[in-house]
């Protein structure tokens, strides 16, 4: 059990704990905080796999963009004095049975798949390679995603305009 494994188990435990908080908590802001820590955990795992650019992008986009959007949405759609949403559990027994069934199927699949073990070499910086691939092999998907983002931007600006609809 070298330090790489120890680090991985620590980060994985943190991510799973945060995901548990996110799923089981009744307070929606606590869910968002659990999501925050889970995002950080995933970024940590990306770093351990040597995907440095992806880890920083995960932080920038997920934490800095999507989580902020989520928090704004939650905070502006409630009254100012805490969560008025009714959160509770319904139909516990059927839900547990279905979840246990799906978990069993997933676990069996995970156990049976021969996961290839990557050699733990020194991680190479990926930014240059990503840039080159975006400009040569994956140029068309890059441009299509840009057009999609432009459409989203225009839509958001349109929805947020000042005059009454």
């Amino acid at each position: 059990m070298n330090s790489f494994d120890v680090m991985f188990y620590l980060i994985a435990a943190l991510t799973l704990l945060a995901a548990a908080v996110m799923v089981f908590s009744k307070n929606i802001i606590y869910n968002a905080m659990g999501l925050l820590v889970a995002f950080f955990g995933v970024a940590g795992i990306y770093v351990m796999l040597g995907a440095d650019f992806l880890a920083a992008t995960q932080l920038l986009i997920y934490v800095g963009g999507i989580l902020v959007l989520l928090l704004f949405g939650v905070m502006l759609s409630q009254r100012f004095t805490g969560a008025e949403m009714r959160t509770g559990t319904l139909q516990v027994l059927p839900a547990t049975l279905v979840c246990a069934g799906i978990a069993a199927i997933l676990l069996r699949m995970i156990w049976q798949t021969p996961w290839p073990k990557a050699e733990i070499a020194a991680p190479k910086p990926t930014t240059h390679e990503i840039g080159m691939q975006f400009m040569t092999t994956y140029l068309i998907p890059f441009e299509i995603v840009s057009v999609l983002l432009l459409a989203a931007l225009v839509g958001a600006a349109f929805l947020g305009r000042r005059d009454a609809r």
Partner: protein
Amino acid sequence: MQELIQSLQNGQTFLAGLPPAILTLIFMALGAVLFATVMALNALVAVYAERKISAWMQDRLGPMEVGPQGILQTLADAVKLLLKEDIVPAAADQKLHWFAPFLVFAAPCAAFAALPYTREFVFANFDIGVFYVASITSLSVIAILIAGWASNNKWALLGGMRAAAQIVSYEIPAGLAMLVVVMQVGSLNFNAISAAQDGGIHHWFVWRYFPFNFIAFGIFYIATLAECNRTPFDLPEAESELVGGFHTEYSGFKWSIFMLAEYAEMLVVALVGAALFLGGWSSPIPNFMNTGAWGVFWFAGKAAFLIFTHMWLRWTLPRLRVDQLMHLSWKVLTPFGFACLLGVGLWMLI
């Protein structure tokens, strides 16, 4: 840092017996403690400097009682804040109220690791240094939002939301200005960016490709000023509008953490600006005091000058209204940022 660990292991010290993993962990812990200490000392010095500079600009003397010329004033303030009662409103969210200062402290603390202090030694030689700093400073948005929410206070919530909107809006021109420099170097590595400006003041990026880099420096300066919630962009913490903004309900030590984090964010932003545009660890005079630990001196000196201009601006300009703030970011800085990017790109091609 790996080279340091290897050289320690090859030497005949008692540290050679420990496995490299333990040594790495020890150095990481030492680095974190060092960053936290630097943050605390920076707040100590910066608060005193702010009070003295603002006083002299307003033709008064500032703190003079505690210690010679009031040097121990910030220390006395820190002791007072430590001893103050920690009041949390009964209807506030106790866990989140306690959690937010941690987050807001962690964001600038983590950003110190990637900065280029000297030519030879970097704490973490990231190849994505600039990108890492940009993504870590977006953590402070969440922290401020949670601080505003957890206080269960209308003014705090409004202040938190305004601060979050402000920081998120000004990240874009700051990122564009950073991209202008990254385009010229071809790497996101801070050490490479500083090395590309080596050799004297005429090599600094702020003078090259005139006027695009100069405008980019201006955009970066204004945008990062807004990211730290400094005047003229400090509407989220303004007293006349929002009592205290997102830190209204924080008293004693937790409030001082917010102040510490604000001054640390100012330092990070000044260091990044100095690294990107003003040459990093290279000295203005070529081959004069240019090696080894002098890098820290020049780097910190440039950052100190930028922090001085931050404080100068604070007492010179009035505060911007929130719609003026948003207008400045989206309708002025972002188009100029794009224009600089295009201009430099075309210039580099021709």
